[in-house]
């Protein structure tokens, strides 16, 4: 599981955005340890946002803004993203995200004040 699995989100979002500008995104040749922020930001706000709100202030799922996540360390948050939380509506994102991408999202949530 710790093995880098390449850049996974771009093909998936590319599929979802067929014919659009996302096809212009860098392909899998990109370094696995440097996920492309643009599709990941989009994923966070649009798809995590399905439950947590477009502005991440919460919905059916809890508030994801930095102050609300302060009790998480990046490792734990990454694990929550990848494996979900059993018995809750939080699904495992491992089928859709690499570890690097999940780590990037954890970092983004903990550091940035998403608009």
């Amino acid at each position, binding site marked *: 599981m710790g093995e880098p699995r390449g850049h996974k989100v771009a093909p998936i979002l590319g599929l979802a955005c067929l014919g659009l500008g996302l096809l212009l995104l860098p392909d899998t040749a990109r370094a696995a340890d440097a996920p492309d922020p643009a599709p990941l930001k989009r994923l966070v706000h649009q798809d995590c946002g399905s439950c947590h709100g477009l502005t991440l202030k919460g*919905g059916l799922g809890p508030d994801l803004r930095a102050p609300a996540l302060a009790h998480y360390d990046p490792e734990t948050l990454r694990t929550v993203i990848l494996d979900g939380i059993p018995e809750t509506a939080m699904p495992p994102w491992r089928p859709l995200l690499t570890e690097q991408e999940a780590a990037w999202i954890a970092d983004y949530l903990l550091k940035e004040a998403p608009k």
Partner: protein
Amino acid sequence: MTRVFAAALALLLAAPAAPMAETAAQTVATGDLGLVIERATGSVLLVDQSDHAALARIGGLGDLSHASLVYSPDERFAYVFGRDGGLTKVDIVTRQIAARVMQAGNSIGGAISDDGKLVAVSNYEPGGVHIFDADTLEMVADIPTGSKTIGLVDAPGRRFVFTLWDAGETWIADLSGEAPQITKIPGIGKNPYDALITANGRTYIAGLFGEDGLTALDLWDDTPTPIRVLPGYGRGERQLPVYKMPHLEGWALTGRDFVLPAVGHHQVLWIDAATLTESGRTDTHGQPVFAMARPDGRQVWVNFAHPLNDTVQVIDTVTKQVIHQFKPGPAVLHMEFTPRGHQVWISVRDAGKVMIYDTRSFEKIGEIDADSPSGIFFTARAHRTGL
């Protein structure tokens, strides 16, 4: 007609100089209009169903991610429920905001009473329902629930029905008298995520996230009790991750069956409306989000959760088979049929388009530019219980 003449006459009497034609020119027929939620920009797009045209954009509605709306009985006003707790009354005749209040911190949909006098909003934070005078948007009742509140619908008799995500209860608020009368029905199930009411106002069904199954209530019963529907429908099957909660709006009654999205299984479920027992399953492309019946009930159109949300499937309700599959584009969020079902309008968020299809030939017959479109709402909803 008489009323129009009377109004024109009154105008003439009041201001004899005003030509009658001017009065006539101000008449706006709203019966084939609709509004499209533009979720990222906090605006709604006024569209004309017959002309396949965008007429106007009305902005300033706040955070419209996951927004929905209901119409006044005269099809003039839309009450838009924003995620940020904003309740906005939009006048589609003058194309302006008529009133707006911030009524909570975090909201999820609303409903209008059968008499059109009350608008109710369902809130996550603080959990509960707020009820407003439809004319003034003054709050007339506050019903705290201590729980995230979902599945709010109108029911005949000036009632609202809603369900508590955390507590697994359904509450019926009767506003026909002086003070709201609340009936609480426990035992609905674990984590009800959405609910709907049949067009005749009789059956309310809550979908459950926390367990496989649904729970129905017969609102014609004086003391409705939970009726388990399809308990354990996914038993023995692997639960798949759900990347977007399904919606139960657009209850699909197809002849004798209801069609509903399964949760955690890539299927739609068919339920016999008379017996509330399973009458079939159809495997689908992904986790269904909406399963919407064409108004005549002959077809069901299904869209899907991320990452398979570029696709729509059409299911024939006689054979329960998928008869058509296509990709309108990236992020199909909502579908709305014309009232007689000859066309369907589909919002394709990441294409920035609303696409219009003929429901018999499946040909694309038009498109309208819209900014991150999500919900599409035609004014004909004004006359339907539960929409």
